[in-house]
C-alpha cells in the first residue's frame, strides 16, 4: 500500500500566544520563539510522524483577525483561503479567551476540521480564570485541548485529538448567524460565484467578497455585484459591514466566554504591573534601557575575555603544529597564513557573539522587547515612525537579516522601508569582532565597554538623523497609529535562551567554515600572488606586489582622508561579504607582511606598531565608525532585495556607504582638532 500523503496542519492564532512554541514541540524543530508579538513573520513548515501518519505543520505568523493589515497577517489570510490545510490547530491564550475566540469565530467559517488548543493554562489559573472545556467543546463543535506549550505540557493530548480528528474529519457544526440582511444576501452572492477554483466554502467566499477581499482572482469578477449588496446591508444595519461583522464575531466569542469561563477576582501581586511602573516610566524607563545596554556590553567584554584567551592559545598551538607537520612552501603558507589565521581570527570572537545573543535572548523572552518599543515611541514619533519600528532595530543589534524580515510586522509600507533603511545602522553581532579587535588593541580595559557602547549609540544617533532626512523625503500619506500588545513579563526558560545561543553559535561557526573560509582563501591568494622574485627586495615585503596590494592601493585615495591605508582598504572590501571578514583579512594581510605567531594578540600588537595607527585610538575609532555604517553584508543586501525593490536596494547600499565615509571623516577631523 502506498504511503498516505502527509496531512497538512496549520497553526493559527493571535500574536504571541505560543504558535511557534507548539510548532517546536510538535516537530522537534528549533524555530526562534520570543515573548513579544511578531516573532514569526513568515510561514514555516516542519514535519513529524504520529500514529503511522506523516504530518506537515505550517507555523503561521500571529494574526488578530482574518482581515489583514500587515504583510505578516496577509501571509495567514493567503495561506488559509487560497490553499486551506486539512486541519487547523487554533491556539488561544486562555487568560484572554474572549479576544482570542474572535479569531476562532472567523476560522470556523473556513469549514476546516479544527482543534482549539487552550494555551497558557497555568497563567490563566493564576489570573483566576477557569474554563469549562467540555462546555466549550460543545459550543464550538470542535475538539478542545489544554496546553502549557512553554513547558511542553499537553502535547500528547493534542496529538491524540489530532489523530482522532484525522480519522473522522469534521468541521464545526456552528453556523454563525449574521443577521437577516447578511443572511439574505449571502445566497445571492453564492449563486453568482464562478466555478470553485479554491477549496473554500462558498459561504466564506461570498463573505469575503462582501468584505471587498476576494478569496481568489476568479471571484473578483463578482465584486461589483457584492459591492452593491454591501451598500444595501450597510444602509439597513446603519454600520459599516466590517464593524457589523466584527460585532457578530464578538457576540459569538462573548457568548462562549459567558457560558464556559468563570473568572474569580484575584487580589494578587501583579509583577508585570509593578515592573511596568519603572520600566515604562517616560524618564526612568529610558534611563533603565540605557543602563541595560551598557551592562550588556560590559558583560560581552568581561565575561568573554578568559574564553577568548583560551581559544587564542589553542589556535596558536594549532598553528605551530601545522608549521611543524607541513613542509615549508605554498601549502604551509596556505594553512597557517590563510586558513588558521583567517578563520581562527574570527572564531576567536565566538564567546562575544554567544554572550550578545544570550542578552538578546533574555530581552526577547522576558517581554522587555515590547517595553523598549513603548519607551522609545516618543523618540521614534519625532522621526515619523512609531515605537513598533524600534523592535526591528533592536533585533538589528543581533543580526540585520532577521531585522529586515521583522519590518514585516509594520502596518504601512512607508514605515517598512524607512525602518529597513535604518536597521543597517544598528550595529549587528558580526561587527562585534571588528570592534573587539580594535578596542582591545587601542583602549584601556576600563574604557572598553564605554567605547563599545558609544559606537552602538552613534549608530542609533546616525539612524535618528537619517530618519529625519529620509522621513521628509519619503511620502507620508498613511500614518498608522500605534497599536501594540505588551506581553506579560515571563522568566525566560533556560531552554529557549540556550537554544537561541546554540543556533546562533552554529550559524556563526558555519559561516566561519564556509563563507569566511572562502574569503580567507581568496584573500590569502590575492595577498600571496604574484610572488615577488627573490632579488626583488627585502624579505617580508612580498605582499607589496600582490593583487591585494594593487587593489588596496587603487582604492587608497578614497580612504586616505579617513586615515586608512591600503591594508584596511582591503579588509573593508572583504567586509562586504561578511563583517567578520574584516578581521580575518587583516590577520592575513598583516600576517603575511610580517612574521611571528598569528594570533589576535599578535595582530593587535602589530596594529599598534603600524604607522597608519600613529593616532592609534582615533584611527581605530574612525575605522569602527566606518565599519558600523558602511554597506551591510551580502546577506543583508540579498534579503533587502527580496523584501523591497532593486531601486531601494541600490539606494540603501549607496547611502549607507556615503554616510559611513562622511561620518568617519567628521570623526577624524573633530578628533584631530581635539588633539587625539
Amino acid at each position: 500500500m502506498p504511503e498516505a500523503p502527509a496531512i497538512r496542519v496549520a497553526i493559527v492564532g493571535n500574536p504571541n500566544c505560543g504558535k511557534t512554541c507548539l510548532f517546536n514541540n510538535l516537530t522537534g524543530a528549533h524555530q526562534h520563539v520570543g515573548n513579544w508579538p511578531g516573532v514569526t513573520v513568515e510561514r514555516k513548515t516542519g514535519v513529524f510522524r504520529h500514529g503511522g501518519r506523516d504530518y506537515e505543520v505550517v507555523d503561521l505568523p500571529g494574526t488578530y483577525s482574518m482581515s489583514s493589515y500587515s504583510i505578516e497577517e496577509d501571509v495567514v489570510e493567503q495561506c488559509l483561503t487560497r490553499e486551506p490545510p486539512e486541519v487547523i490547530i487554533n491556539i488561544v491564550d486562555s487568560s484572554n479567551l474572549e479576544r482570542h475566540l474572535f479569531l476562532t469565530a472567523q476560522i470556523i467559517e473556513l469549514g476546516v476540521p479544527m482543534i482549539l488548543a487552550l494555551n497558557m493554562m497555568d497563567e490563566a489559573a493564576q489570573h483566576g480564570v477557569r474554563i469549562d472545556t467540555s462546555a466549550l467543546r460543545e459550543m464550538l463543535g470542535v475538539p478542545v485541548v489544554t496546553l502549557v506549550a512553554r513547558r511542553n505540557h499537553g502535547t500528547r493530548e493534542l496529538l491524540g485529538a489530532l489523530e482522532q480528528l484525522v480519522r473522522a474529519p469534521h468541521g464545526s457544526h456552528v453556523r454563525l448567524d449574521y443577521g437577516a440582511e447578511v443572511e439574505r444576501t449571502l445566497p445571492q452572492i453564492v449563486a453568482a460565484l464562478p466555478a470553485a477554483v479554491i477549496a473554500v466554502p462558498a459561504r466564506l467566499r461570498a463573505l469575503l467578497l462582501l468584505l471587498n477581499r476576494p478569496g481568489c482572482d476568479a471571484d473578483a469578477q463578482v465584486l461589483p455585484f457584492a459591492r452593491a449588496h454591501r451598500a444595501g446591508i450597510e444602509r439597513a444595519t446603519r454600520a459599516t459591514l466590517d464593524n457589523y461583522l466584527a460585532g457578530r464575531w464578538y457576540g459569538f466569542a462573548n457568548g462562549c466566554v459567558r457560558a464556559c469561563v468563570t473568572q474569580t477576582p484575584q487580589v494578587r501581586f501583579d509583577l508585570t504591573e509593578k515592573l511596568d511602573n519603572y520600566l515604562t516610566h517616560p524618564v526612568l524607563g529610558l534611563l533603565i534601557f540605557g543602563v541595560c545596554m551598557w551592562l550588556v556590553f560590559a558583560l560581552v567584554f568581561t565575561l568573554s575575555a578568559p574564553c577568548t584567551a583560551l581559544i587564542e592559545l589553542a589556535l596558536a598551538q594549532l598553528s605551530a603544529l601545522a608549521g611543524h607537520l607541513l613542509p615549508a612552501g605554498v601549502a604551509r603558507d596556505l594553512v597557517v597564513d590563510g586558513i588558521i589565521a583567517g578563520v581562527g581570527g574570527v572564531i576567536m570572537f565566538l564567546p562575544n557573539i554567544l554572550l550578545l545573543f544570550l542578552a538578546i535572548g533574555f530581552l526577547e523572552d522576558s517581554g522587555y522587547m515590547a517595553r523598549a518599543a513603548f519607551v522609545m515611541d516618543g523618540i521614534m514619533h519625532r522621526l515619523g515612525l512609531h515605537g513598533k519600528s524600534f523592535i526591528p532595530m533592536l533585533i538589528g543589534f543581533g543580526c540585520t537579516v532577521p531585522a529586515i524580515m521583522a519590518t514585516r510586522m509594520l502596518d504601512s509600507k512607508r514605515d517598512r522601508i524607512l525602518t529597513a533603511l535604518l536597521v543597517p545602522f544598528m550595529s549587528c553581532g558580526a561587527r562585534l569582532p571588528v570592534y573587539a579587535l580594535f578596542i582591545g588593541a587601542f583602549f584601556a580595559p576600563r574604557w572598553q565597554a564605554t567605547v563599545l557602547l558609544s559606537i552602538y549609540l552613534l549608530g542609533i544617533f546616525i539612524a535618528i538623523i537619517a530618519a529625519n532626512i529620509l522621513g521628509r523625503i519619503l511620502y507620508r500619506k498613511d500614518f498608522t497609529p500605534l497599536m501594540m500588545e505588551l506581553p506579560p513579563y515571563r522568566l525566560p526558560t533556560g531552554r529557549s535562551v540556550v537554544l537561541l545561543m546554540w543556533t546562533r553559535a552554529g550559524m556563526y561557526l558555519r559561516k566561519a567554515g564556509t563563507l569566511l573560509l572562502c574569503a580567507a582563501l581568496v584573500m590569502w591568494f590575492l595577498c600571496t600572488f604574484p610572488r615577488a622574485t627573490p632579488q626583488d627586495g627585502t624579505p617580508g615585503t612580498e605582499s607589496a606586489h600582490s593583487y591585494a596590494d594593487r587593489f588596496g592601493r587603487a582604492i587608497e585615495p578614497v580612504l586616505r582622508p579617513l586615515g586608512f591605508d591600503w591594508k584596511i582598504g582591503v579588509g573593508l572590501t572583504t567586509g562586504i561579504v561578511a563583517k567578520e571578514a574584516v578581521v580575518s583579512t587583516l590577520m592575513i594581510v598583516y600576517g603575511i607582511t610580517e612574521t611571528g605567531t598569528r594570533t589576535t594578540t599578535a595582530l593587535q600588537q602589530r596594529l599598534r606598531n603600524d604607522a597608519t595607527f600613529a593616532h592609534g585610538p582615533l584611527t581605530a575609532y574612525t575605522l569602527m565608525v566606518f565599519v558600523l555604517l558602511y554597506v551591510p553584508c551580502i546577506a543583508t543586501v540579498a534579503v533587502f532585495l527580496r523584501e523591497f525593490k532593486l531601486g531601494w536596494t541600490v539606494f540603501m547600499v549607496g547611502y549607507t556607504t556615503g554616510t559611513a565615509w562622511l561620518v568617519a571623516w567628521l570623526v577624524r577631523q573633530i578628533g584631530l582638532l581635539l588633539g587625539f
Partner: protein
Amino acid sequence: MTATATPPSTTQEDYLETILCLSAEHPDGVQVNELAAALHVKPPSVVEMVTRLRAMELVTHAPRERVQLTARGLAAAQAVHARHTVLRRFFTDILRVSEEIAETDACKVEHTLHPETMARLRDFLEHAAADELERDHTVPLTLLHKGDCGILRRIAGGHGKTTRLAAMGIRIGCEIQVLQNSGAAPVMLKVGNARMAIGRGLATALHIAVVAAHA
C-alpha cells in the same frame, strides 16, 4: 368658519414662524418693516399677507400697529417651529450638514413632511439625544489618569481603526483600565487580561465613560 378648515400655506407658515421668532425680542408685537427685513420681502407684500392671516384669525393687526399672534396663530407657529428645530437638528447632528445649509433646508422641508414622518424623526432624535447626553459624560482616553477605569463608548473617526481595534479586543462597550498615561508616551491600557499600547493620536479618538477614577 372656513379659516379653520384650510390649513396655512407654506408661505403663511413661514410668516407665522418668523413672527414667533421675532416676538421673542418684541413681546408686544412685530412691526411690518421688521417682518419684511427678516423675510427678505417688500413691506407691501407683508401687509397683504398679514391681512390674509388676520382674516384667518391667526394674527391681530391694525394699520400702523404691531402684528401679534392670536392663540391659534401661536399654536400653529409653534408647531412649525418645532418641526423646523427637529429637522435642523437632524441635518446638523445626524447628517453632519453645516448649520447654514441645515437652516435653509429645514425651512424648505418643514412644511411638506407627513406628520407621521415627523413623529418618527422626533423619536429617532430623542434616542440620539440620549446618546448625546451620554456623550457629554465621556472623555478622550488621553485625559484619563493612571488607574482610572472606564467603558469605551465611541471611537471617533474612520471605521478602519474600529475594526482593527476590535480585533485586538478594544471595542465599544469594553472595560478599559489606564495603566500608564504620561508625557508623549503612548497610553498603556489593560483590556481583559491583556495590556495594550495605543498611540496618543488614536487614544484621543477613544471616548471613555469614566467608571472609577483612581484616588
